[in-house]
């Protein structure tokens, strides 16, 4: 028996390799050398930057590699860039926060890099195995990160809940893949699935639908869609704040990348079946997230519910299943990355002393003691609420226009209603900052350069991307051309 090893080019997965090698190097150096290492964040940032350059270098390619396991296309690359951005901003936020907890350790950065590799795999996967692998590489790293404050009972609990439920949901996802494998007659290549599933439609349709249902569950869990969202608030609250930020933006982005890729590429013929399902999920997710967020007093928990709501908005774009919808997913994820990490940056700055100030009332009077910080937070809150002219507004505009274009008027209307409701709790933070006297003297806030830079950069970018969305729209439009069904 002869074994032919298919040809492949390592360049096409260059960014993954860079990040993985970087992470391994961090682990090795951390293990083999003594003393505190303060250069890991810089090193990680450099690695991320290198990966970004590689991605840009690859831009424009349109092929598959590794025996058709990996897509080398702009859709993946654009997601790479968003994911790298998310990881880099998270790393900027992390150092002083970790130091406060006495946890500034090398593996933290290594794990973030590994998680990012997993996410990239999800964004680029051309085969269900790759999706599963990417998902797990990402998840396992994030489970550890969520429980990174090992002596902290909350962090423990968050990590365990995330792990058990995550593994539980993964099992459903896998089961779905198994059925899909059966329905498609022994292939799990995304580009083959569409044809195979329709050819064998009469025979295997129930099996296919079952598989679609289970995939919705698996992805729904990762993006925190109702009713698979219940872990989100607990885990977001208990995890280290920097990791919460990372989970909210990057994990969600990666999950949506795979979600969109699978549903647009493999199941367009079944759109009639799944569109109503996702319609209901989207509405339930938006509504529950927004309504419950109103009653929250812990800022991390509030942002957790808000992230559920934002997942709902993105689901709207998925339901629309047209080009503008796909573009709006990308745009929204970029916008969400910027505004949400920025908001968490402010949360980290305000929280201090091992997260002593996480109550929303701790933000009272912030504008008087720290006007710059309050202004930044106001920008993020307005952006999350979808106020013009921020990126949040343009993102919602794209999403709802996509829904209208696809004929989902009611979905768009419900979405708009939801975003109007959401203004209430976002604006409440602004009001507290600007229109309430401080409950107590907040005391000094240590503005470390990296966190400050992160907050400023995200605030500026949130506004700029909102005022000049055109360039990203063009990039995204270019990258969603790979979906023939849209």
């Amino acid at each position, binding site marked *: 028996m002869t074994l032919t090893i298919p040809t492949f080019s390592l360049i096409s997965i260059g960014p993954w390799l860079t990040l993985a090698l970087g992470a391994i190097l961090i682990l090795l150096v951390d293990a083999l050398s003594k003393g505190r290492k303060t250069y890991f964040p810089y090193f990680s940032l450099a690695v991320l930057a290198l990966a970004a350059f590689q991605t840009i270098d690859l831009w424009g390619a349109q092929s598959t590699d590794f025996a058709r396991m990996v897509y080398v296309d702009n859709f993946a690359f654009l997601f790479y860039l968003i994911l790298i951005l998310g990881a880099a901003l998270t790393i900027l936020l992390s150092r002083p926060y970790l130091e406060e907890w006495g946890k500034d350790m090398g593996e933290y950065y290594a794990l973030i890099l590994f998680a990012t590799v997993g996410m990239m795999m999800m964004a680029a996967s051309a085969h269900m195995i790759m999706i599963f692998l990417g998902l797990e590489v990402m998840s396992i790293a994030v489970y550890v990160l969520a429980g990174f404050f090992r002596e902290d009972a909350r962090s423990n609990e968050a990590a365990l*809940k995330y792990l058990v439920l995550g593994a539980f949901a993964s099992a459903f996802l896998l089961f779905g893949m198994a059925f899909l494998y059966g329905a498609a007659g022994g292939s799990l290549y995304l580009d083959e699935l569409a044809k195979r599933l329709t050819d064998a439609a009469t025979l295997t349709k129930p099996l296919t639908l079952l598989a679609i*249902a289970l995939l919705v569950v698996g992805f729904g869990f990762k993006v925190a869609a109702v009713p698979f969202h219940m872990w989100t608030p607990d885990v977001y609250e208990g995890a280290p704040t920097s990791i919460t930020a990372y989970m909210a933006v990057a994990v969600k982005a990666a999950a949506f990348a795979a979600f969109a890729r699978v549903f647009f590429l493999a199941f367009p013929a079944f759109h009639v079946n799944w569109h109503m399902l996702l319609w209901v999920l989207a509405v339930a997710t938006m509504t529950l997230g927004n309504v*419950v967020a109103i009653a929250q007093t812990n800022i991390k928990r509030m942002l957790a519910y808000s992230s559920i709501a934002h997942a709902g908005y993105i689901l709207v774009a998925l339901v629309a299943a047209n080009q503008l919808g796909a573009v709006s997913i990308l745009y929204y994820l970029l916008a969400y990355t910027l505004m949400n990490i920025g908001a968490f940056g402010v949360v980290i700055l305000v929280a201090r002393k091992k997260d002593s100030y996480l109550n929303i009332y701790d933000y009272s009077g912030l504008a008087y003691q720290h006007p710059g910080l309050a202004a930044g937070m106001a920008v993020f809150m307005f952006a999350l609420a979808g106020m013009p002219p921020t990126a949040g507004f343009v993102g919602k*505009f794209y999403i709802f226009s996509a829904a209208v274009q696809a004929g989902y008027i009611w979905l768009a*209307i419900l979405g708009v209603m939801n975003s109007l409701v959401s203004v*209430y709790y976002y604006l409440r933070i602004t*009001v507290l900052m600007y229109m309430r006297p401080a409950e107590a003297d907040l005391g000094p806030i240590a503005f470390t350069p990296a966190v400050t830079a992160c907050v400023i950069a995200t605030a500026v970018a949130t506004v700029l991307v909102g005022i000049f*969305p*055109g360039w990203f729209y063009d990039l995204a439009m270019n990258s969603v051309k790979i979906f023939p069904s849209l």
Partner: protein
Amino acid sequence: MIQYVWLIPVFPLMGFLINGLYGKRLPKNLVGTIGAGVIGLSFALTVAIFLEFLKLPAASRPVEIVVYNWIAAGKFSVPIGFLVDPLSLIMLLVVSGVSFLIHIYSVGYMHDDPGFPRFFTYLNLFVFFMLILVGANNFLMMFVGWEGVGLCSYLLIGYWYEKQSASDAGKKAFVVNRIGDFGFLLGMFLLFWTFGTLNFREVFALAGRYPVGSGIITAATLLLFVGATGKSAQIPLYTWLPDAMEGPTPVSALIHAATMVTAGVYMVARCSALYALAPFSLTVVATIGALTAIFAATMGMAQFDIKRVLAYSTVSQLGYMFLACGVGAFVAGIFHLMTHAFFKALLFLGAGSVSHAVSGELDMRRMGGLKDHIPITYRTFLIATLAIAGIFPFAGFFSKDEILFHALVDGNYFYWGIGTVAAFITAFYMFRAVYMVFFGESRVDPHVAHHVHESPPLMTVPLMILAFLSIVGGFVGFPIIEGGHKFKEFLSPSITPVGHGGHPPVSLEIGLMAFSMAVAAIGIYTAYKLYMLRPDLPGWLAEKFRVPYDLIYNKYYVDQIYDTIVVEPIKSGSTLLWTQVDDKVVDGAVNGSASTVAWLSAHLRRLETGFLQNYALAIVLGVTLVVGYLLG
């Protein structure tokens, strides 16, 4: 110059940035100079553009200036673009001009406020959004301005956040405006869905293909009007405006009288092409306008807080403007908008000057006899009052008369009747205010009385300029004489007229004028009689007509009703959802599910103790639902 129209809003934006970022470190005078100066620049530029526009031949009007393409999505795109046409120019002039005066006034009025830079920051931001709103060439950009002014208004109402009532008022304004904005958004979506564009001129051109009374246009115009009722404080969304008086007085003058609240009227006039196709919507607009005009006017009669009197009068006058639009007299509506901006800003600034003189007092029962102590304020306030009462030759006379005239000649006797009654009431309660504040015995607190003083020139000069405008502002729309109505001539290209039967005889017009003058005069005399000659009468009347008086004094209990039926249920509903649904939905489903086998149920009940497993159960339930839906 016209191509630089985008600079008009950019100046205030620059002021916002400078004062917002460095205001605290700059000396007060500089902050004030920047704050007012940038608006002055906007105004100067607007005037320059206006003059240039006048010289343009009719063929090259209107001008659209597109700065760049903001949001593009396929064939559809939303530019940052400005539409320079007579309507927007008039609005730009009014907004930047009145804002400029009010900014100057504020430098004096807010001088001792610790939040001085913050105040100018917000105020400049407001002007920025307002100019965007009126300058936009498409619905989306208008909406950006629309949201922005709402936000600033909210921030400025709650400016003195230490006062609980101020922050409550801010919240109320916010919630009510949300409802309106939702209507606006839906209307915009409907237009986008129907026409595939949001550009004003394109939408109006495409709408021309639809028959009069078409359902979709009626729906869209009604939804847009819901937005207008929120922003312009019409029934049923007017309740926030009187409470908004908690903000500083210049804010009330600028936002809650002269500019922002008129945005709804502007929007309706801007969409006249659409409303012309929807007679039903016009009827709704006119009816709401007429009802608001009279309803708010009656409430104005029983208020003792001078700013609240003015607030109800604003609501009532806005009703007039909508009444005008509703009967198809869009030009008259905008005309009244303009004159109203002059005299109502003047009234508010005058009220501010009065309260400045009596150490912040706003209750008219503790004023009186101030005429000789603050002569400039008195004279200018009187001029504005004559204008709002509709006395010839003050500005309000021309615009109000034109509205009533249009209502009558179109055969809308009902609207005309209501308008006339409202005019009577307006004349009455405005003069009631004048008598209570400036005439009679002084009821001022003795501690305050000895240092009652006229305001500094920074405040009185804007008063005088506005007074001048309140006197002459109406002459641009001089009726009867052929060609006397310059305003109408200028504005008509922007407006789609609605059927209007021929030329009524001049005698009718003159007769009507005399009639409305008489009505106003009777109103004034009644006030004179009640508050000057027989000061005991009002109390006696209030006693005598206890029930209607209480009803009016308590503003028909509308606030209480809203609280009970809208606000409270939402609050408790949210709490319920939070504590019950998210936390216990699983438990409830488990407990309630009769279909679960007894064995399973006995064991599943134990899940209630551990949360993690509840979550897992939620996933399983989700799986069941999803699979059930797809396979079922």
